[in-house]
């Protein structure tokens, strides 16, 4: 670790989740054990094998976005809108307006994906170019007359780096800007990169966020072909069962979680409220998903934080409810913590949102450290010997130690971990 005195603290939080769009609402829902996973209402999902998910209720972007940026909504797909608005919330929460951070010292790290096309963008063009046969498109029509039926800015609505683009324009952030697309690990990698940027003295304030939405016909069609999704369509709130013996897959969702990460002296000088400090991170690859590589990543993050497993209050897991992946994650956690440290998985409350998931989940631990209590994991009823960890369930427990560890991984074995420390002023 390069020697540095520059410390990075969390001073803003913006959320758009299926269980709340303020930190207070989100937190209360977790304490109350509420779940926002429901039967899909965004579209007629009757022909899908998995018909549940975590939708944002009553999300109307034009009512939420700053008035002077409203007209840009037409060129934003839904994940881009979610990310931009969550960033706006985070800036507001941090008490910062455009111009209040020197533009060249203000950067962004955003977790994102290529967003799914809205079908109606292509409706007329497609209708003109197809007949009744599957997988037949008349390219002479599509590349010719049909092209004029597609909105000219079509591609820009969906590019992964568009949340960052809009946020940098909205808040005049001219510092380092990156968009990471490493699926579920991307949010934590964004934190790692933002901390490095602050430590090497390139920025005082970084927006660190993620947004995604799978609550649309295209994403749901695609993910139903390959992703491990639950079939508990009749019981959505109990469908995602982290590390439970009877788990049968995950539910997808949508949302955004955006943090303000600020250099400590800068935060102090302006009297900012501080949620927590980011003190460690690591990333790696677990070949074969044995869990051994996962454990190494956690240990490296603890080493950077200068702590041991005994200093950790809880581990915040992804706990997506997949038979295979929960076992992988549990092996990784158990390799470091055994059953000594409680594991909390907030995901059953809102579903798996890929690019946004790690940060939506991290928000729960940041708030737990702040409020001094940890909510219980939903739907974990029967432990599974294949998941040898201690899952915290039931009523909230007191936070007893100052550190929380957030972990994330992808289905291929990419792993990331982040250590946050309770802020005690």
């Amino acid at each position, binding site marked *: 670790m390069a020697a540095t005195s520059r410390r990075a603290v969390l001073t803003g939080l913006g959320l758009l989740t299926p269980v709340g769009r303020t930190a207070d609402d989100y937190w209360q829902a977790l304490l109350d054990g509420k779940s926002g996973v429901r039967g899909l209402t965004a579209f007629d999902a009757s022909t899908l094998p998995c018909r549940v998910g975590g939708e944002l209720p009553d999300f109307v972007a034009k009512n939420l976005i700053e008035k002077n940026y409203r007209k840009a909504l037409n060129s934003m797909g839904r994940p881009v809108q979610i990310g931009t608005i969550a960033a706006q919330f985070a800036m507001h929460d941090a008490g910062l307006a455009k111009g209040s951070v020197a533009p060249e010292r203000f950067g962004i790290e955003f977790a994102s994906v290529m967003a799914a096309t809205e079908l109606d963008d292509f409706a007329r063009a497609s209708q003109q170019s197809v007949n009744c046969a599957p997988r037949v498109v008349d390219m002479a029509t599509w590349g010719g007359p049909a092209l004029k039926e597609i909105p000219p800015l079509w591609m820009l609505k969906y590019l992964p*780096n568009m949340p960052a683009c809009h946020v940098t324009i909205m808040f005049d952030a001219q510092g380092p800007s990156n968009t990471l697309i490493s699926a579920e690990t991307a949010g934590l990698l964004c934190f790692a990169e933002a901390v490095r940027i602050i430590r090497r003295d390139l920025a005082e304030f970084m927006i660190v966020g993620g947004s995604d939405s799978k609550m649309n016909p295209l994403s749901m069609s695609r993910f139903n072909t390959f992703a491990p999704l639950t079939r508990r369509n009749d019981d959505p709130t109990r469908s995602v069962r982290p590390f439970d013996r009877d788990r049968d897959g995950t539910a997808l969702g949508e949302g955004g979680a955006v943090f303000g990460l600020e250099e400590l002296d800068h935060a102090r000088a302006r009297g900012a409220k501080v949620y927590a400090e980011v003190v460690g991170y690591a990333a790696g690859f677990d070949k074969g998903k044995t869990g051994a590589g996962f454990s190494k990543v956690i240990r490296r993050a603890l080493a950077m934080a200068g702590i041991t497993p005994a200093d950790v209050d809880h581990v915040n897991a992804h706990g997506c409810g997949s038979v295979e992946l929960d076992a992988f994650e549990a092996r990784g956690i158990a390799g470091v913590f055994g059953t000594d440290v409680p594991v909390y998985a907030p995901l059953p409350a809102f579903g798996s949102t890929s690019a946004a998931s790690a940060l939506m989940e991290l928000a729960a631990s940041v708030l737990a450290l702040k409020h001094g209590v940890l909510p219980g994991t939903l739907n974990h009823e029967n432990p599974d010997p294949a998941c040898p960890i201690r899952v915290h369930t039931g009523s909230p427990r007191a936070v007893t130690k100052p550190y929380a560890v957030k972990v994330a991984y992808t289905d291929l074995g990419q792993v990331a971990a982040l250590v946050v420390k309770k802020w005690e002023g």
Partner: protein
Amino acid sequence: MRRRVVITGMGAITPLGHGVADLYASQLEGKSAVGPISRFDARAFPTTFAAEVKGFDLRTHLKGAGPYLRCGVNTQFALAATRQALEDADLLNTHTTDRDRIGVYLGSGEGSEDFLSLISAIGRGVEGPAQKVNPARFVSHMLDTLDPRSEAELEMHTTGGHLADVFDLCGPNYSCQTACAAGSQAVGEALEMIRFGEADVMVAGGSHSMIHPLGVTGFNLLTALSTRTDSPTTASRPFDLTREGFVLGEGAGMVVLEELEHARRRGAPIYAELTGYGTTADAYRMTDPHPDGRGAVRCIADALKDARLSPADIGYINAHGTSTQANDAAETAAIKGVFGEYAYKVPVSSSKSMIGHLIAAAGVVELIISVMAIRKGVLPPTINYETPDPACDLDYLPNQARERKARHVLSNSFGFGGQNASLVVSEWLK
């Protein structure tokens, strides 16, 4: 003291061949790789041509390529380029190095969507006078025709995951997508990770192909592509007055970045030192660069400062040079903004005049060309440069390679969304 980072391996799959040597030799000859699109029937589009990678078969690059033949070409290109780079660096043998200290940082393009399934499912799902898509019918059509494995491989993290798995690269695994700046940004951030001690080796670069129906659709709608259909090989004409859009390319470039002492200890070949990285945002518009090159000026200046060099140390600039009106003028303004009068003395060229725009792979392929220029002492030209533009009045190495020693080279990448990344690479003196 800051850890120093050197380049010890390079690999490239580009429209000008399947290796670094072919790429550089063709660049010096001024060969254009642009021709009619063969991947799909593009004859009706405003743009019918691109710079495609030709004759590529992953099986000639990788033993056990079978499982990856159904991945997108972006992933296949990345696997081949990574294998070349690791072999070049003598890092294929997994027993001689600590694989936990070797990471991956990929500027990763998306795969190619199943266009035929998507469009036929939408078209067959349209109903009613309002011409809206019935989602339940759309879903049924999609589930009938989608291939699960191909859909899983479309997810953007998979390329970097496969690189780690195939080559036992168990260190930090990052993928970024900042449009046309992604490859340079991946290399730059990987440099910082080695400096910070988070890895000793990073396999960094980019891989992308947007030569697919939706890629051409999207860029044609934005009127970003050249439509010079009567003369594809002269369509990419960076800095020329008559430029009217970029030409899509595709491919992958990967470099092995290594901490200097680590490289020395194992007697690795050292090609160059990566000395500087800058990254900024324009915070201006979605597609247009700031007309004065506001973000680009600071990006270039930051990269020079990071390299502890002054403008006069730079002997060659490998420009972003896309051949769009806006980019080439703004980039020229940015170079003048940083270099002042010296801007007229430093040769500048655009590799894209020959290979087109490799999007997420562009920056790293251009970095590799820059390393070769330092090593061989010959600077590649900008081809198709015929009519000077008063807004672009620098020395663009028109049409002819030039023998000239450059000890330090600046390579620029600027992308949609106001993304800027610049790298400085320096001659390695033993």
